[in-house]
């Protein structure tokens, strides 16, 4: 996979979350209009994979769909994916210190150790150190 969408409530705030708090880097930033940018982030450890921070706007969806999707994202409906790391306890402590909200602390599972966190919009992810 090369690109994946994460639907966010506010692109600017999502950029701050994913870069300054979560530690990803901007890969592509293309202004398309006054309010719209094509904005992708990623990690140098996984070149060629870009996460598109997609604002839920009426440019992309109908008014009703955008409103419904915003509500669902806000409620924490969507589990988007799993980020893996080399040391779960170090990463967990660092992200917590930077203000990332965890809904579950690291816990041993049969495949490794896993914690759950939310982004600034409400999307949730697993942070895992695999066996």
């Amino acid at each position, binding site marked *: 996979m090369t*690109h994946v969408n994460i639907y966010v409530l506010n692109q600017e705030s999502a950029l701050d979350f994913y870069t300054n708090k979560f530690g990803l880097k901007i890969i*592509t930033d*293309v*202004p*398309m209009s006054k309010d*719209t940018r*094509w904005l992708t982030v990623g990690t140098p450890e996984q070149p060629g994979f870009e996460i*598109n921070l997609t604002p839920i706007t009426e*440019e*992309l969806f109908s008014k009703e769909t955008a409103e419904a999707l915003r509500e669902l994202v806000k409620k924490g409906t969507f589990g988007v994916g799993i980020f893996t790391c*080399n*040391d779960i*306890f*170090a990463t967990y*402590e*660092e992200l917590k*210190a*930077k203000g990332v909200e965890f809904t579950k602390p690291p816990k041993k599972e049969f495949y490794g150790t896993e914690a759950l966190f939310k982004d600034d919009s409400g999307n949730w992810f697993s942070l895992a150190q695999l066996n």
Partner: protein
Amino acid sequence: MINEQYLKIYFYRRLVQAKLFIDAHYADNIDLGNIADEAYFSKFHFIRQFKSIYRKTPHQYLIFVRIEKAMELLKTGVPVSEVCYAVGFESLSSFSALFKRIVGITPSTYLTQHQKIKVQIVKSPLNFIPACFAEKYGWLEK
């Protein structure tokens, strides 16, 4: 058991604080011995534990952060000499040599390349966006 868990958390917090200290003060004249003291480790023990988690010694990590920050600044068009001092290097020649060794090109080439990309983005933005997404946004019709 609880005590063991507490010690583990305490150990991680001290190492993470040391890393965050480097992240925040990379541009200063950091004395890594002081960081070890603040983290309540002996210098040797600190270097070993830091490397076991971050796969770099504290000094290697400091250089890594400085070069990463230099790349970020160069991407925004800041001149090489300003970038050198802004990220904590004291000599332009050693900064340039180190940058080339790690990134593969000199800082000035890196700066020029990214200035060109910026011009191309303004000129032909759709060349940087997969067409399937651009179409969904309605950008192809403009």
